[in-house]
């Protein structure tokens, strides 16, 4: 399923890794993210990690939205 929820890598064994999504765990393949390390977040699809999430970018995006939300009065996307 094409969902955007990040899975945290908590164990790596060869071409497999154990990931955690909000407490639920699953063993997935990491063939396509050979550079993955513990505590990385990945997106998974059909049992494979497809990409390592770039946390800076993700956090930047999160921060941006958080600020927008908090700035209730400001007009939304007036730009």
């Amino acid at each position, binding site marked *: *399923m*094409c*969902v955007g*929820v990040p*899975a945290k890598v908590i164990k790596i064994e060869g071409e497999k890794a*154990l990931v*955690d*999504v*909000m*407490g*639920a*765990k*699953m*063993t997935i393949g990491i063939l396509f993210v050979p550079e993955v390390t513990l505590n990385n977040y990945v997106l*998974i*699809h*059909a*049992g494979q990690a497809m990409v390592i999430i770039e946390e800076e970018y993700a956090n930047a995006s999160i921060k941006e939205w958080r600020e927008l939300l908090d700035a209730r009065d400001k007009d939304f996307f007036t730009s």
Partner: protein
Amino acid sequence: MAGRISLAHGEGGELTHQLIQEVFIQSFGHGEQARLDAAVIPCFSGKMAVTTDSYVVDPLFFPGGNIGKLAVTGTVNDLAVTGAVPKVLTAGFMIEEGFPVSDLKKIVKSMAAEAETAGVSIIAGDTKVVERGSVDGIFINTTGIGAIGEKDLNPAAVKKGDAVIITGTIGDHGIAILSARQQLGLLTDIKSDCASLNTLLNQLIQQTEGIRVMRDLTRGGLATGLVELCEDFSISIELNETSIPVHEEVEGACEILGFDPLYLANEGKAVIIVDSKEADKVLQLLHSHEFGKNATLIGLVASISEKAGKLKLKTPVNTTRRLTRLSGMLLPRIC
């Protein structure tokens, strides 16, 4: 007793007798009744509720319970949500040749223990043993009879604005079973919610006014249960998506597998429709009980109609979408 159930245990002869004596009668304590072809008990007064369910869960043992406990809680809950005080159960066992006697004993003991918790007696039983491959391990049917007292539910009084309350988080049983099955590789610490709700629900009926109707959630999940309710009683319900309590881990598992928690099985949850004036009191009573501590107001009765009612979900953007029954099986999806 032998280590495994053999066909001879099911032929009605010596070994059947032994099995009944040593496993069932010992746990259920219905020896006196078992002398007769049918158990004889005094009638209640007023009305009685009768329900039947067969239990075919795989795996037989799972975090939070086993098929035996489930066979009691499931039937007890069907009685309880009808407004009845569950009184007696019957138990029908269909067992595969070669089934370990120790597992059977564990299952039967769980049933006896849960029956005691729920305050019901198991008064009649039946055992069939079938050829290997003719059944997967063990199936159990339980049929329950309950007494409906003076203070009853009142579906006829349901009206627009009535509160829809759920007694706790949804989908726990479904995910517990799925991880116990170890087939899809999912690992969780989720326990099945499997529990007898009769004490809790009977208490609600006694201590509050204005409970219209209740339903326990099982296969098909919250969505299917409420769709049925809407159709059966010609009411339309609007659920508030963001209010529906879901355990984080259940949500995580759903994200991974592409499941919708609204359709996951539950075995210890009920929805209650109650006069909105009593909603707080109901919630308060629920919160004070172990099996109701996560009870939440999740929606309202939106309208009453002549035709079959509809279930709708209010989304975060304030639109609604209609929810239908689970159509087909719950399957992991890629899109």
